[in-house]
């Protein structure tokens, strides 16, 4: 019988940080389960850096204010305070664990500027910071001999009477469903960018599986309408070029060679918050000053030496995918889906409304990012709240008996999986996926209108029907990625429905949710989190919840 005290779903930064912390707590048995080998997690693609108030002239309170303002005042300030206050200690923990941070001349940590920050406070490893942190954490997982269910896909949560008792997981390599019982489950499954397939920085595996199963189990999804579009992604494939390009001094130019950000964020220029910069880029293109639907990222003036020291991955990506060397040529970029500020609603201790169920990292909405996330705050978020989730879950485990789970859960889930394999029809799963991505990119993008948002919702509903007629070619047990794709796309369609319904209902513009018909922020009516509850009979049911405000009353947000 597979059983643990704490089971962590997802082995990226949040999941592994939780596992490492849990393994330090005496008497706690912890395991990780992931549909990927931990080192394949998309945390590894993060590039720019991690924020912390490290320098003598900086204060965590300032980092917190920048984060609150960046969130367009939708972030929960108690969670933000905690995250920023804990940040320096976490960065030193990473460094002591061996992370190869870039160094200043005196051998101390080098610091760079990043978007929306009042002063430079981003520690980094060239422009492969996520890769470095992911590997450091996996090294620590190996050092502590923490067990990982590698390439197991969690298909469902086991929840009875409002209490989480474990998961059902499909063994990808061998085939077959298993119950893993657990006193506490931490969801750390990352983002859902493939909802925007074709226009996202995210990996193929970022399908929001944890968000979907929490939703089906009755946990509300918060603020799903707040989708971050990163300003500098490559047109052919959506691959990310880090904000650090701008942090190190790079320019954004329109077709006239102007640094157009002067008109949108005269003080911060290219280092305004991402929602603002993405809107600026789209506006430039709409007004005829784009270059083939893009703007130009120019880092030539940084010089080859600096680029090779601080932005070598950027150079490699441009050469590989565009055949352009950014040392010598500007690079066409445009906004692309990158991050979901929304996700599984938790309190500031990562608890959901289900006892024994926690969520941390991008899949969670705590909310430290509110309506817009600052760059280099996500790596921080995953580590701080991964740790908090472990501590909270461990406390809960101490006063919780081992769960009793009937095997009928297994039987029912096996029948459900069989129904996927027995599907018939003439649709192709890939076609459904492509159409979803295209529709969301076009109609639920940087600027939204009521007609387009409604069209996006109708498209989702159409696809929810059509997917039932998309058969699975692979009927085998061993490594059936076709089956996984079918499960993933259904979860994505339901998340997309939540995004659309939430966006339509929010009649204001705030952070990344920018409406042509309601262009202003409306604190009187909308200083609140959207909560979407699963409703099998009809569409998601919406409720709202106040924002936790400690120090900062909402002000006008200019940069």
């Amino acid at each position: 019988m597979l059983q643990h005290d704490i089971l962590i779903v997802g082995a990226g930064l949040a999941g592994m940080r939780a596992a490492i912390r849990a393994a330090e707590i005496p008497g706690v048995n912890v395991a990780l389960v992931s549909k990927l080998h931990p080192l394949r997690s998309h945390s590894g693609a993060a590039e720019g850096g991690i924020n912390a108030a490290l320098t003598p002239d900086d204060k965590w309170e300032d980092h917190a204010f920048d984060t609150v303002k960046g969130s367009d005042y939708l972030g929960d300030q108690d969670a933000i305070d905690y995250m920023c206050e804990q940040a320096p200690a976490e960065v030193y923990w990473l460094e002591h664990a061996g992370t190869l941070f870039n160094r200043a001349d005196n051998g101390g940590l080098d610091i760079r500027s990043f978007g929306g920050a009042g002063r430079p406070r981003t520690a980094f490893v060239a422009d492969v910071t996520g890769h470095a942190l992911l590997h450091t954490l996996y090294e620590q997982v190996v050092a502590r001999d923490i067990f990982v269910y590698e390439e197991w896909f969690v298909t469902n949560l086991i929840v009875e009477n409002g209490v989480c008792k474990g998961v059902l997981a499909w063994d990808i390599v061998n085939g077959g469903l298993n119950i893993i019982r657990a006193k506490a489950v931490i969801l750390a499954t990352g983002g859902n960018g493939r909802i925007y397939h074709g226009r996202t920085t995210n990996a193929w595996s970022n399908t929001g599986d944890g968000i979907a199963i929490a939703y089906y189990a009755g946990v509300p999804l918060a603020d799903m309408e707040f989708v971050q579009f990163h300003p500098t992604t490559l047109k052919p494939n959506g691959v990310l070029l880090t904000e650090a390009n701008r942090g190190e001094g790079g320019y954004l130019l329109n077709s006239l060679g102007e640094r157009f950000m002067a008109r949108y964020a005269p003080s911060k220029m290219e280092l305004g918050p991402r929602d603002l910069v993405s809107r600026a880029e789209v506006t430039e293109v709409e007004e005829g000053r784009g270059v083939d639907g893009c703007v130009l990222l120019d880092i030539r003036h940084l010089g080859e030496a600096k680029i090779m020291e601080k932005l070598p991955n950027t150079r490699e990506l441009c050469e590989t995918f565009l055949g352009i060397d950014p040392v010598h040529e500007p690079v066409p970029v445009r906004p692309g889906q990158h991050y979901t500020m929304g996700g599984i609603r938790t309190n500031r201790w990562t608890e959901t409304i289900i006892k024994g169920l926690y969520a941390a990292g991008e899949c969670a909405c705590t909310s430290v990012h509110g309506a817009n996330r600052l760059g280099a705050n996500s790596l921080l978020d995953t580590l701080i709240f991964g740790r908090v989730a472990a501590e909270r879950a461990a406390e809960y485990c101490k006063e919780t008996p081992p769960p009793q789970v009937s095997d009928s859960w297994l039987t029912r889930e096996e029948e459900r999986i069989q129904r996927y394999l027995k599907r018939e029809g003439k649709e192709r799963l890939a076609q459904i996926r492509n159409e979803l991505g295209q529709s969301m990119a076009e109609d639920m993008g940087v600027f939204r209108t009521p007609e387009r948002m409604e069209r996006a919702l109708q498209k989702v509903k159409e696809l929810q029907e059509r997917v039932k007629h998309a058969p699975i070619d692979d009927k085998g047990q061993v490594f059936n990625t076709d089956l996984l794709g079918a499960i993933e796309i259904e979860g994505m369609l339901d998340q997309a429905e939540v995004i659309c319904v939430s966006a339509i209902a929010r009649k204001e513009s705030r952070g990344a949710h920018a409406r042509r018909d309601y262009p202003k922020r409306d604190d009187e009516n909308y200083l609140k989190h959207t909560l979407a509850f699963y409703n099998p009979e009809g569409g998601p049911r919406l409720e709202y919840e106040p924002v936790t405000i400690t120090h900062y009353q909402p002000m006008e947000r200019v940069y």
Partner: protein
Amino acid sequence: MAKLAVKILRYDPEKDPAPHHETYQVEYEKSTMVLDVLFMIKDFVDGSLTYRRSCRQGICGSCAMRVNDRERLTCYTRVAEIIGENGGEITIEPLANLPVIKDLVVDIGPFFAKYKAIKPYLIHDPNKPVPEKEYRVSKERTTHLQQFGACIQCGACYSACPILGSDDDYLGPAALAKAYRFANDPRDDARAERLKIVGNEIGVWRCHTIFNCTEVCPKGVEPTYAIQQLKRMTVQRKLGFR
């Protein structure tokens, strides 16, 4: 768009007695990567075609395969650049030196067992004080170690190494490069122990400087360099120099 014949080594463990090549016809353009070709086939021709993939931008290490008999990251390899190698046909096969599970998916267990064997984590002497803030490490040392830290554990080097073709016990280039990275981190206190782990006939002395690993590494890690340095360090230690 141009036409392309893709020959893929298929293997369904539930049906096939042995792996066999299947050929597909696809179209490609200038920006098409080899991984995109696999998707064209899986998406619209045969959904049972099985391969690992995730980031599609050369950082997760999932999609290393043998393409035209050479280890590459399929997401990072442009069809247009390799189309001339094999008379307009592209052959895609799984990594070598690891058991095949299905189609292009291999069992990475043995690869990661070697990773774990070299103690791939920083080891501090518990008697030495830990600084309140960060350790001081020079820019030069950091830049040097970052070259080896760039390894994404994709397995290309492991597949390319002919020694592993006949000796399952050899630790292999990736594990040894990782051992070098830690043995030279000034914050690490376990150099003697590390050199013991690699200074033997399943470690550094199995390397005969064939350089395949260095040639195929998609991230410029140069494992051959790391291994030769470990040989020097091992000998120096044995002879009592440090």
